[in-house]
């Protein structure tokens, strides 16, 4: 490790290898892997705030990233996900790799004005992604 570190220092002295937490993170959590990303919009941006009274802002979030080859234990993916990966790698690459998709959602309460002027408060299912998985 010392020799590698020396070589590393020669090449890129800016990041001192002894920053363990960064090293640890890079080793345990490879970058660009499937994860939940923040996305927030306001209905006024869409000019819908005249009839959507609340909420003013809505954070649907989204999932993005690569699915690792062995996914089961990390994302709670079904065994089928691993099988699909094997099919993609070994048998038929036209079969897509497993995708990074939402696994769980939160509901959203919305207050809107109806065309006849009445007002409705409604709770909608599955409007905010809260967890991602590979499948």
């Amino acid at each position, binding site marked *: 490790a010392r020799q590698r570190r020396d070589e590393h220092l020669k090449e890129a002295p800016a990041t001192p290898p002894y920053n363990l937490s960064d090293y640890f993170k890079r080793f345990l*959590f490879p970058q660009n*892997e499937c*994860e*939940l*990303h*923040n996305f927030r919009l306001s209905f006024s941006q*869409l*000019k*819908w705030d*005249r*009839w959507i*009274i*609340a*909420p003013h*802002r*809505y*954070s649907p*979030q989204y999932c993005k990233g690569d699915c690792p080859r062995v996914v089961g*234990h*990390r*994302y*709670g*993916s079904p065994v089928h996900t691993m099988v699909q990966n094997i099919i993609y790698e070994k048998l038929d690459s036209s079969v897509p790799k497993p995708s990074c998709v939402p*696994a*769980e959602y*939160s*509901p*959203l*309460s*919305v*207050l*809107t*004005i*109806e*065309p*006849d*002027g*009445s*007002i*409705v*408060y*409604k*709770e*909608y*299912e599955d*409007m*905010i992604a*809260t*967890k*991602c*998985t590979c499948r």
Partner: protein
Amino acid sequence: PHSRDHVVSDETSGFLVAPEGAASELNPLLQLPKSMRRGYALLPPLLKVLSDRGNQDWGSEAPRLQPDSRALRYMKRLYKMSATKEGIPKDNNSHLYNTVRLFTPCSECKHRHRDLKKDVHSVDLLFNLDRVTALEHLLKSVLLYSFDTPAPIPSPIVCVCRLSVKEQEFSGQVCPSASHSVAFRLHFQVRKRKWVEVDVTSFLQPLIATHRRDIHMAVNFTCLMGDPQHTTKLENPINMALVPPSLLLYLNDTSEQAYHRWNSLRHRRRNPARPRQRNSLRVSPMGDRGTGSTQGKRA
């Protein structure tokens, strides 16, 4: 959207579903393969409307009736009580409803009694319930009164509210005659501004259960100041502006798109084991943001 007039409403769920032949004329965004068209019909009403409206600029749409400002204020307050700042339904209060609709009367016939001794308001109200879908089941219906009194009234008020449902003898009749009625006796203390909810669930249940679109009610409201326990004779009529009440319906929407609190709680209880998840956001189902990594939390 420009092909809206080709769309027919799906009576059972109230969703707009394009008839078979018209699909090709729909906006390419909306053109789904036939097998998925059923899926489109299941879009949450909000998303369906969003996708429809999203393609229209607002100005070109038919004028929308503006709600009564008092009603709007009341519903904003209800929203704050029922949902977090992020808009997620609060799970701590055990309300069963997942839909609340507030209707203001669309027509009224005023009858004012000349009797100076009592502050009597009689009004015929017509509520149009077209927006209630077949899958929205009534849990509770309330007549919502807003009392705007310039100054707080020190002593309790006794009001007798007499309700009667009206049947139209012939179409277009604006003030039909009464059919069956019921009287409520209310005692309450009015501060400067007050909402009074008069529970009329049992009275309206048979009408709403039969999906009656128009509810015609005569509401006779007599208010006197004083406490019936102490004084035998009620004096001091109240000079109070009585705004015709709105009708509030607490409903349970059984459609798939609606949030079913009990289902999701049961689901959560059944699957306590959670997949390990690396989140840069740490968002819990309640919407509050956690701090630190999931791993740290687990440790």
